[in-house]
């Protein structure tokens, strides 16, 4: 700026201190005004053209699903005439918004993600709610399913899929996924939908090798639907996590197996089981390399011993002879299972009650 041109531009006593503005200043001012005008124009236009969702006459629950990632949910699950409604996805941080009070159950089985979807029949007919849980491993998926399938039911195991339609509910475990599809009624039309969903998900969900416990327990007379897995607190023992269980047809006796890191750890864990069983009753003698204990209330026999990296046990057998015979069969069967099949699943974080 040349000599004699005043640089100050502030206003004093309501008068411009400077009589003129530079061309650049006028240009910048004009640009700012145009920008402000554009913003005002955009606000006015949006006001005149509101999002139709804001004043939709269609109730929220009847609107089309928002654009949510379907994840492993197959496309177009609604049968002819039905429609999909309210697809939603939940992770460990917000799953309580869907199943508050029950989320701890799934978290104890390594919960990672829940995809929820409702299928609605026409004209206010029945509904089917789908809850597809990603539990991180086949052990967890099968364990969660086993814990919810009614005790009297017999699920089917076929091509790596455990499934059951019981009254109004489809239970299905495949790979790391556990699906519950809940009908609002047990009407034949709803059961048809559940059966069809079972077929769709069996074909669509990625499979995985079944846990070794099926190879271990099923040849010994355990029904496939009675093979389960407890991620934590088996037999109410705080230390007993990652326990594979197989319930025998008498409904009381259970075979169990736990994979430890090393044979030494397995021996130590077997000793803990035996000590814990004894605390609930009294020693019933050692036989077949196992220190058996008799429950003081139920008079049933339990005990465990290490076999390589595994702890093999019998819980709640009728007598010591039966328990010993079962344990020997279990040990023989376990010897045929390759070490590579003994996969362990990280224990879930402990939850306070």
């Amino acid at each position: 700026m040349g000599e004699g041109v005043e640089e100050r531009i502030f206003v004093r006593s309501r008068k411009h201190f400077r009589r003129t503005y530079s061309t650049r200043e006028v240009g910048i001012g004009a640009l700012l005004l145009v920008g402000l005008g554009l913003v005002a124009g955009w606000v006015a236009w949006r006001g005149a053209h509101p999002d139709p969702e804001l004043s939709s006459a269609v109730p929220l629950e009847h609107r089309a699903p928002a654009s949510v990632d379907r994840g492993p949910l197959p496309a177009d699950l609604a049968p002819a005439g039905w429609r999909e409604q309210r697809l939603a996805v939940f992770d460990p941080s917000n799953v309580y918004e869907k199943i508050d009070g029950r989320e701890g159950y799934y978290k104890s089985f390594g919960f990672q993600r829940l995809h929820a979807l409702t299928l609605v029949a026409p004209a206010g007919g029945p509904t089917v709610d789908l809850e597809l849980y990603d539990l991180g491993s086949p052990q967890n998926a099968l364990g969660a399913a086993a814990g919810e399938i009614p005790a009297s039911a017999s699920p089917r195991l076929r091509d790596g899929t455990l499934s059951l339609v019981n009254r109004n509910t489809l239970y299905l475990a495949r790979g790391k996924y556990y699906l519950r599809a809940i009908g609002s009624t047990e009407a034949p039309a709803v059961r048809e939908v559940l059966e069809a969903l079972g077929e769709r998900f069996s074909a669509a969900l990625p499979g995985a090798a079944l846990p070794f416990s099926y190879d271990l327990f099923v040849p010994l007379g355990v029904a496939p639907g009675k093979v389960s897995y407890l991620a934590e607190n088996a037999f109410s023992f705080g230390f007993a996590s990652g326990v594979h269980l197989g319930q025998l047809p008498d409904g009381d006796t259970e075979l169990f197996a736990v994979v430890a890191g090393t044979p030494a750890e397995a021996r130590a864990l077997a000793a803990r089981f035996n000590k814990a069983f004894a605390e609930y009753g009294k020693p019933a003698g050692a036989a077949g390399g196992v220190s058996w204990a008799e429950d003081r209330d139920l008079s049933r026999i339990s005990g465990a011993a290490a076999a390589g990296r595994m702890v093999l046990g019998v819980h709640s057998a009728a007598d010591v002879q039966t328990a010993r015979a079962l344990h020997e069969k279990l040990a023989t069967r376990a010897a045929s299972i390759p070490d590579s099949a003994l996969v362990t699943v990280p224990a879930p974080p402990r939850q306070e009650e």
Partner: protein
Amino acid sequence: MDEAEHARLSRRQVLRQVSGVAAGAAAAGVLAWRLHDLTGERGKPPRPEISLPPGGYAVERSTVLPALGVATGQSVAALVKGAVDAVGGMGRFVRHGDVVVIKPNVAFERAAALGATTNPEVLRALVMLVRDAGAREVRVADNPIESPEACFVRSGVQRAAVEAGATVYLPSPRDFRTLAVPGATWIARWPFFHRPFLGATKVIGVSPVKDHNLCRASMTTKNWYGLLGGRRNQFHQDIHGIIADLALMMRPTLVLLDATRVLFRSGPTGGSLSDVRPGNTVVASTDSLAADAFGWHELLERRGEPLPAYFEKSAARGLGNPDWKAQHVKRVQVG
């Protein structure tokens, strides 16, 4: 300022300038401290705490009438009336002109048959009984886990309440106020679904009998959880403590235990009809702990197991008596 000018500064001028800078810094510090608002709460308009009436909404205790009314039978309307009549009839609890809040459990978007929510027919019968007793207004309110609209519609509670003449209050963010609960461990100050309680004179809870994954049983005391707002799932870290707080928070006029169906496993959400068995029973009481203890032993059929810890915690605060066998229980068989 050149060197020569600097040399001309007197001690007075230096002191004045230093003092000015120090005063400015102090003023800025005070202002910053006053405006500091780490949570953002101070910037909001003040929302005064509210309190529920001293003594809650309880009626005077009776030394003559039974503590528990237990009705068994098939007709839902007869079950509700039979249970309430057994503890003195609705006229003991609701007077002409009362404004009555009824709190069902509508926590989940489930069909009524699945037992995760209050049976809408029980609610319908209760609303009609309250209206027949002369209530000026009956309000039905809950703050469900899932979408309130969907839960009220799918459970059938919305329809039953409206058809019986009640007004349904669905929660929205502006309906919550901070409730002071003196003596509470977790909810001494906590958002509370307040709008239905404006002008209310009586409160009745009606809850299903449910297995619960965390607290083992969800009945009339746990039912008040549905009046809380905020991130209430954090209370699951001390589920028994929060239920004892709920017993402290709400002293109801009457509670009804709806055991027309019993969700005996996979609770509180349920989902399978195989997890539900018919109970054909309704229990009425002014003592939530007595009603819930009865439910634990007789309806969930957990006779050999100790009561969940929240019973002892609540009883230690003098909020009821879980020893229902020691109290006067009137059992009636209805149609």
